[in-house]
């Protein structure tokens, strides 16, 4: 279990992270979201043992980042933000070197490098110098490095930045596979991809944990769903009277389309399906209907709202332990 307890990190007089607390268990893939400078990278560096907290404690399976730093690092894999790699080595040489300094035997290091290179689709570049790799490929090499010693905590700083869709698929599959036995902390700005990958989302704002929720809660909240219909043989006043009982007059949006049909939409309450009632009412009014649908924004759009602070935390808390 990962326990982050009241962790604060200051750089001089600036507080980058302020009393952040949460817990995670193997299988959790936690997305750290927030604007630039919110404290995501600082939290990841603390979890990777690169920095130490000014106050508070981070524990992984009982090991403390401060007191048991070496043992903590043995079971932690880390991908920094910029994918720093040794440019003068080939991909397989670099990964073998990293495996060895992480304590793998010669045979195991070779086997892990071979397996992970295959898993992340790096066979074609394994003999190429790192200096000649694209940014996305460097990210994949960095993720292989982080996974080499089968860590119990995987810390990935923006792994999906600037990667193409195929690379992103390889990465998300590898991260998902690693999460079967490990806790994954991942940050980034690619909300759609992170949304699909992660099981929990935590939003940092100015160093504070401002919101958090689970993927299930985000998906089932219905928050942001919109009911849309397209009807004809009616007037805007009649349509407004019709929709008001469902949504409230101020929330109804009416548009007259060029072909004479009315497009009517309004937000719907979470968990309440009104489509049957709407349909029945339209039939009763004798209008023609050509479209009735309930649109739900993608997970990325929901996360964007959560990050922007437009949506309330659907579960969890604004601040404090989950």
């Amino acid at each position, binding site marked *: 279990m990962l326990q982050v307890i009241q962790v604060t990190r200051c750089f001089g007089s600036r507080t980058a992270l302020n009393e952040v607390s949460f817990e995670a268990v193997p299988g959790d893939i936690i997305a750290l979201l927030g604007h630039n400078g919110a404290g995501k990278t600082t939290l990841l*560096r603390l979890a*990777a*043992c*690169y*920095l*130490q*907290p*000014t106050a508070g404690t981070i524990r992984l399976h009982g090991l403390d980042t*401060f007191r048991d*730093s*070496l*043992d903590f*690092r*043995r079971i*932690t894999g*880390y991908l*920094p933000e*910029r994918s*720093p*790699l*040794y*440019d*003068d*080595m080939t991909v397989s040489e670099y990964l073998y*070197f*990293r495996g*060895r*300094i*992480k*304590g793998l035997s010669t045979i195991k290091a070779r086997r892990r490098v071979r397996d992970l290179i295959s898993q992340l689709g790096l066979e074609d570049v394994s003999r190429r110098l790192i200096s000649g790799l694209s940014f996305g490929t460097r990210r994949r090499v960095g993720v292989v*490095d982080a996974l080499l010693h089968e860590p119990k905590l995987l810390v990935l700083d923006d792994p999906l930045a600037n990667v193409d869709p195929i690379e992103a698929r390889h990465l998300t599959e590898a991260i998902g596979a690693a999460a079967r036995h490990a806790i994954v902390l991942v940050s980034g700005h690619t909300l759609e991809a992170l949304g699909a990958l992660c099981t929990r989302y935590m939003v940092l704002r100015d160093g504070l944990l401002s919101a958090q929720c689970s993927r299930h809660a985000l998906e089932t909240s219905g928050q942001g769903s919109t009911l849309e219909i397209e009807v004809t043989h009616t007037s805007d006043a009649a349509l407004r009277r019709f929709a008001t009982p469902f949504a409230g007059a101020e929330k109804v949006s009416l548009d007259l389309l060029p072909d004479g049909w009315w497009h009517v939409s309004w937000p719907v309450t979470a968990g309440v399906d009104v489509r049957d009632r709407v349909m029945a009412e339209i039939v009763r009014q004798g209008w023609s209907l050509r479209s009735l649908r309930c649109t739900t924004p993608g997970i990325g759009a929901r996360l964007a709202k959560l990050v922007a602070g437009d949506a309330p935390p659907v579960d969890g808390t604004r601040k404090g332990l989950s």
Partner: protein
Amino acid sequence: MSVAHLIGWRDTRGMLTSASGYAVLAGFLALAGWTFTELLRRNEGGFAPAQAVWAMSVAMWLPLLAALTTMRVLAEERQTGTFETLMTAPITARDMILGKFTAAMTIPVLGILLSVFSVLLLIKMVPHMRGAVSTAGLILALGVLFLQASAWTAVGLLAALLARQQAVSGLLTMVLIGVPYGACAGWIAWVPHARVSLWHWPPLGDAADAATGFFALAPPILYASIAGCVLFVCIRLVEARNIRTR
């Protein structure tokens, strides 16, 4: 292979596959060669044997060589960010510093060994020099020069740990080594009746003494102690990094 060896191997390989490593080595050899010939010319008819002049000319440029090599092994890692991946790997401070030290010693050791050729060439080319060069002196001088190189390299590593940028690291190394050098020069100049010559600067004098077969225990102990103590400080600094960042 231990973790220190692995890190040393990686960095040595990095140095020997880069043009900058060879440029530094070539620059050092050019400077040492120029100094050697210049001192020989000035010493013409003097009492200093050729291997003593060689040892002095090599010892003179070792601090610069140490500054240029160490600023690569650590400060470059900090600049490129690989230091972050290294520090988050499960390696001890001792392994990291010893690995870096081993790698940083490669170029100085190569430089010293290659510079011996200038003396051997002299023996070959100038028949009357043959009797003036002693093998024992050369070997002793090599030992002292290696110890000096290790002391200056350790100081360079310390500077690289303290500085964030390569240039600052190089400058700091020169300052840390140069201040005692300068103090010594000032002292020699100030002492009445002292013979003010390069010969009397301790690092150069020690190398020259060893090259002439005069073996004293103090200089090797001094340089080994400097290397050992400074490396110990480096290890403690890396370990204390955890405490400092708290």
